[in-house]
């Protein structure tokens, strides 16, 4: 087993005639690591996936996946070890679920019998085995998405690239999906999850990368990002009623924009604040709300916008 990263992007950029899709991206992904890739539509998420898949070539910089450049012929065997779920894919409507999956398994190098066997196992794993003999055109959105996932799991890939994997899945299926991701991760599979920020994704990713119009705004573990962003923790004490407004120390932290019982406390003041709150006799409960991924994401986007505006202003002046 190698210790070198599974994927290395160094100063990677992708330029189209009229637009810069990606700009100076540096990134590494290790084996067994799950990276969340976040950004709005058109932020460059799909472009980055295509670069890693070798479907397109970078305009600048170097992409290295499992020791080879993915857009060369040498990357041939690497492709057997990559699973990809595209964002909007509609499989061959007139084929049955089993036929679709058997076809893709054969293209991954399975021989006919083994391909069918593997396809059935995967369909059972994602929970559409009951409908595998029905044509895909009769599938619901969620079932199609599960079929797509099964397709990405063909051949136990070492690297999974999933573009919006939970779109169309109901909460239970989403939970099932994340469980599968955790399981694959423990088996040493690396995963890149591409998504709009979704609640529930944060427990399942090791690191997050935030993209906006082709630029990398931030990359790191959630804790690192939170620290960099220095977002306050929201503390909601219950039972104090009016006391909050009358206490000079607490008043400093009181947020004005939201409901008047939430305190916004910087990370480093958290424990001190809790101690202070506990001195009140009447307190009966305390809610602590760490900044979640969505807020961190919003913060970085906002930050980026401000920088952009500043640049525009200085350019105008």
């Amino acid at each position, binding site marked *: 087993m190698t210790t070198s990263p599974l994927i290395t992007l160094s100063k990677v950029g992708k330029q189209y005639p009229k637009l810069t899709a990606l700009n100076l991206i540096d990134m590494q992904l290790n084996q067994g690591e799950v990276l969340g890739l976040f950004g709005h539509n058109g932020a460059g998420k799909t472009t980055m996936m295509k670069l890693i*898949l*070798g479907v397109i070539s970078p305009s600048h910089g170097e992409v290295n996946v499992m020791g080879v450049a993915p857009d060369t012929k040498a990357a041939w065997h690497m492709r*057997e070890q990559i699973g990809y779920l595209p964002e909007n894919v*509609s499989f061959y409507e*007139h084929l049955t679920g089993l036929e679709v999956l058997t*076809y893709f398994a*054969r293209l*991954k*190098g399975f021989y006919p019998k083994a391909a069918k066997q593997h396809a059935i196992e995967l369909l059972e794993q994602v929970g559409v085995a009951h409908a595998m003999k029905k044509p895909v055109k009769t599938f619901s959105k969620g079932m199609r998405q599960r079929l797509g996932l099964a397709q990405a799991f063909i051949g136990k890939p070492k690297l999974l690239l999933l573009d919006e994997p939970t779109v169309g899945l109901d909460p239970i299926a989403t939970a099932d999906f994340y469980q599968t991701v955790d399981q694959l991760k423990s088996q040493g599979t690396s995963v890149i999850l591409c998504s709009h920020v979704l609640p529930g994704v944060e427990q399942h990713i090791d690191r997050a990368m935030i993209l906006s119009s082709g630029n990398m705004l931030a990359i790191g573990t959630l804790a690192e990002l939170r620290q960099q962003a220095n977002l306050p923790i929201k503390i909601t004490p219950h039972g104090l009623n009016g006391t909050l407004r009358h206490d000079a120390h607490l008043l400093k932290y009181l947020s004005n924009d939201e409901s008047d019982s939430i305190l916004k406390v910087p990370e480093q003041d958290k424990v001190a604040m809790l101690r202070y709150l506990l001195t009140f006799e009447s307190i009966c409960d305390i809610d602590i709300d760490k900044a979640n991924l969505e807020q961190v994401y919003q913060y970085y986007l906002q930050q980026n916008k401000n920088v952009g505006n500043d640049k525009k202003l200085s350019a105008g002046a």
Partner: protein
Amino acid sequence: MNQILAVAGKEFFDGLRNRWLISITLIFAVLSIGLTYFGAVASGEVGVTSLSTTIASLASLAVFLIPLIALLLSYDSFVGEQESGTLLLLLTYPLSKTQLLLGKFIGQGGIIALATLLGFGASALILYLQVNDVEVLRLFSTFIASAVLLGLSFTAIAYVISLAVNEKSKAAGIALLIWFFFALVFDLALLALLVGVEQGVSQQGLTQIMMFSPSDIFRLVNLAGLDSSDVNGALAIAIKSSLTQGQLFLVLITWVMLPLIGANFIFMKKTL
């Protein structure tokens, strides 16, 4: 190889499933049997007419039908998968673009070839049983072989269209125009050239120009061996020229290979 076969198998079974094979076979069979028996109704006879008349009328019908069917079958082969997103997915598989192209060509070409063989072969067999003349089999095998090549040629042309555009509707439009061009415009232009421009083209030159249309080569292959009384127009002049049937077949095969190579070239350049 496993991958090429997988693609070919899928395309072939698609052709079976959506009734392409059966409908094309039926169309060809009905037409050829009909022409064989009722081709001479206009001159007051019913029954097996002269062999050369039959082949001549079959050829002039097939030259319209086969390209149309091949284009219809294959025009959305790539652009359709591009629109549904599976083309991008396929390209992330350990499958080269050439393998995908070849696989599709073998599968869909197989449908066209089999339908041609079964459809026209049926009437050849019936005719042979009626007249018991080996000449029937000889002429029909030439006819069927060239018809298959004509079909494959237009399948490859359809791939060029399908890979060159990014919208299915555009591909359909262009396919129709291509068909119209080779079925009608090319010959009309040729005729205009012959009639309108005095001393414009020599017999040799005319035959050379005809090599630019797979439809005309197909006609030449089939009509060259017949009594010239059943053949008229520009063709009659061209037939008298010196190309042998073998050479004509070679040119027809070139007309299969060139578009296929062209399609492969476009595919290599194509970004998704």
